[in-house]
């Protein structure tokens, strides 16, 4: 019972932002930032314990390469020293490089080679072939729209125009498909604020909003 009440209060504190930026929202915001930070730091501490403290200190594996990672990690804190601050860039460079390596791994296959795979343009039931032709044309023209050193003039103008139009179809489809997942959160929360005990909290919230609106108008 108490859980349902607290949950509905918390939801309405966040949703009060729909009316205006107010003290209730600010409390919710501060709570969320504080709690989320605590969660991520707790996860961080668990990583440090499981990956460093236990294998190295408890299991006495002093020569494991993880020590280099620990050294690089500590180097980040040279950021706070006036003379050694440049050393803090080393670990960040390494992790950014690794990030780019991860991003590149398989990207050319997934984003280029696999996308070039296309079916036959002439098929028995004609329809598939026409679809493949449209697929080919829309893909090529959207690709051709992004030519940077060729002006969109002459032969390239109609191609680029067809390209931007086919991209608009793609963006319209995405915008239309995406609403379903966007509204999922609100729909899942509604029962908490419509059914008792949340309903009573909602009524209190509505009264507060009306009162606040009335007071501000008078001021």
């Amino acid at each position, binding site marked *: 019972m108490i859980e349902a009440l607290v949950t509905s209060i918390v939801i309405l504190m966040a949703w009060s932002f729909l009316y205006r930026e107010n003290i209730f929202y*600010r409390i919710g915001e501060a709570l969320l930032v504080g709690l989320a*930070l605590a969660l991520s730091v707790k996860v961080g501490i668990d990583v440090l314990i499981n990956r460093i403290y236990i294998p190295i200190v408890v299991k006495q594996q002093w020569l494991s390469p993880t020590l280099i990672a620990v050294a690089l990690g500590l180097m980040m804190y040279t950021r706070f020293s006036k003379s050694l601050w440049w050393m803090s860039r080393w670990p960040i460079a*390494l992790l950014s490089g690794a*990030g780019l390596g991860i991003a590149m791994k398989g990207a050319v296959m997934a984003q280029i080679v696999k*996308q070039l795979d296309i079916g036959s343009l002439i098929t028995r039931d004609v329809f598939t072939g026409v679809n493949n032709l449209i697929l080919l044309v829309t893909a090529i023209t959207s690709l051709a729209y992004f030519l940077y050193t060729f002006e969109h003039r002459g032969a390239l103008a109609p191609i680029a125009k067809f390209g931007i139009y086919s991209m608009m*179809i793609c963006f319209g*489809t995405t915008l*239309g498909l995406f609403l379903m997942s966007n*509204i999922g959160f609100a729909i899942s929360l509604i029962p908490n604020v419509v059914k008792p005990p949340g309903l009573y909290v909602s009524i209190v919230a509505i009264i507060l909003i009306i009162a606040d609106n009335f007071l501000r108008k008078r001021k």
Partner: protein
Amino acid sequence: MSFLKRIEIPIILFAIGSLLPLIDYYTGNLSIQASELLSWIVILVTFSYLIGVVNLFRYHLNNIRRGRDIYYSILIIGSFLFYLAIAYLNKGVYDWIFSTLYTPLSVAISSFVGFYTYTVFLRGARLKSPTAVLLLAVTIVILLYNTPTIRALSPQLITVGDWIKNVPNTGAYRGILIGMGISMIVLFMRAIIGRERSYLGGG
């Protein structure tokens, strides 16, 4: 000592960091070193948390000193310290806060994605140009195509929606993806030869 300050060292580390996974991917060699590197990344990111927390604390302690919305800063620091302590002191309260306070608050904030999509429709979906007309026409068709009750009433709309989704939409998406793939390769090259230095603070 001054040799160590040179910018080339972080660039070399960056190159090592990005080439190692790729060598492992393309040739299968150095795969132990590559997976070791990726396990280091988690540790490095974890070490970085302290820098973030120090930044947040300094920001809010300055706020408190300057007297600007004090309770907001106190609440952030207070709830952080309290919840971090509770995580190790009392698992019961930790779980209670997680399921009754943190999760609903987190989902409620995520629900603004739904609210603001309507703001985007109202304020941004403007028929300002022919391309915008096409964008919004397709958006409306796909919105109706995705409406459960309209799907039940008009199957023809489902076939039209399916075609739009599977043919022109997929085609243009392929073009965009290929374009992104190419630009990423060029970005990768610029980063490896040290021309893209934003990770060094633009140094």
